[in-house]
């Protein structure tokens, strides 16, 4: 079967269960957002998927065969991560050449072109790059590698607003011209909210949500108005969170609003992904 399947994957570090019976399926040519708080298990999951670390239980199957036991599978998947695996004295241009040795599909012309757009100098040594340019170097590599599965762990770490904007544009361009499965793990949820099609939320080593963004967001809404009116309206509904500002109250409610029978003075707005994420994973969240 085509796609990337994670089946019953558990990973423990001593007493800590970093991944707890994870079951996921990543389809072909879709953009997934892997969202979780610090320490939720995102990087461990990505490292397990790419075979950098081994699961204690469970399996990762890529297009029908285990990812770690199949040489050709490992060349079909690329992970851009926070840690740097390149020799420190290597120059950017050499690193591109080196990546080309490992990945036949790596497009060096594309990498050079993207470096130009981001202002990344090819003659710089990788160790001399700033945090931002270190990220850019890794992004340029990931966006030129042309494999069917691309995992981006914190792709905008240290990037300024202009470079983040450019990255999102280049990502969409690359995806449009050369569709692949992207799994993007990020803390800047608002910025990728429109780009990701599917949302996977991991919390304390467990998957708590896994569905298309539209369907996830359509399950909740926000009602705003006078405290008493909102409370009256929400009385028989499932409120996942609320906040007040003076006499004004926002209530986040599970379900679909009936717009025709909204009481006077209440207004409805859509739940956004970041707000929902905070409610689902925050302290005192009751939705585990």
């Amino acid at each position, binding site marked *: 079967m085509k796609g990337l399947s994670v089946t019953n994957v558990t990973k423990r570090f001593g007493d800590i269960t970093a991944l707890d019976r994870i079951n996921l399926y990543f389809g072909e040519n879709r953009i997934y957002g892997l969202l979780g708080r610090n320490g939720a298990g995102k990087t461990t999951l990505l490292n397990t998927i790419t075979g950098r670390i081994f699961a204690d239980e469970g399996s990762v199957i890529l297009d029908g065969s285990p990812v770690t036991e199949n040489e050709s599978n490992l060349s079909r998947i690329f992970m851009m991560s926070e840690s740097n695996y390149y020799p420190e004295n290597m120059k950017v241009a050499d690193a591109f050449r080196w990546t080309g040795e490992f990945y036949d599909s790596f497009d060096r012309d594309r990498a050079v072109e993207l470096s130009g757009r981001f202002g990344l100098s090819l003659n710089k040594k990788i160790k001399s790059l700033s945090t931002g340019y270190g990220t850019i170097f890794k992004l340029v590599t990931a966006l030129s590698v042309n494999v069917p599965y691309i995992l981006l762990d914190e792709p905008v770490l240290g990037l300024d607003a202009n470079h983040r904007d450019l990255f999102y544009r280049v990502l969409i361009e690359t995806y*449009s011209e050369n569709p692949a499965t992207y799994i993007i793990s990020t803390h800047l949820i608002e910025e990728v909210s429109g780009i990701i099609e599917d949302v996977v939320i991991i919390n304390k080593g467990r998957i708590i949500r896994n569905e298309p963004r539209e369907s996830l967001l359509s399950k909740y809404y926000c009602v705003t108005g006078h405290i008493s009116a909102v409370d009256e309206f929400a009385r028989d509904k499932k409120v996942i969170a609320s906040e007040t500002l003076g006499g004004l109250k926002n209530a986040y409610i599970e379900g679909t609003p009936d717009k025709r029978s909204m009481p006077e003075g209440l207004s409805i707005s859509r739940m956004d992904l970041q707000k929902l994420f905070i409610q689902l994973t925050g302290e005192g969240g009751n939705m585990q």
Partner: protein
Amino acid sequence: MQLHFEDERPLFIQIAEQIEDAILSGVFPEETQIPSTTEISVSYKINPATALKGINILVDRGIVYKRRGLGMFVAKGAVGKLKNRRKEEFFDNYVSKLVSEAKRLGFSKEDIIKMVERGFKE
């Protein structure tokens, strides 16, 4: 042009509406090409599938059509069609909102009629 992620309507509906606005205001005249799915998704920073879904709404409504190998074009008669539909929606979208806000502020019917007259003069 800007998308509102907290807007109660899904992104693809907002995309469709903004292209309609551009057609109505003459930015994309009839029988001219509209931006491609990729251009739209890059410029709004949204998934190409979402942009495509928005464009497909316009195809279903007969506002744009596909020219094989070239891209999407504004249909002949699209402006008239859009105007007719928006006229039908005008009461719900504008008049009923205007009246409910006017009531909340304590305006009389006559006050509002005067303001509308002033609006037409300016």
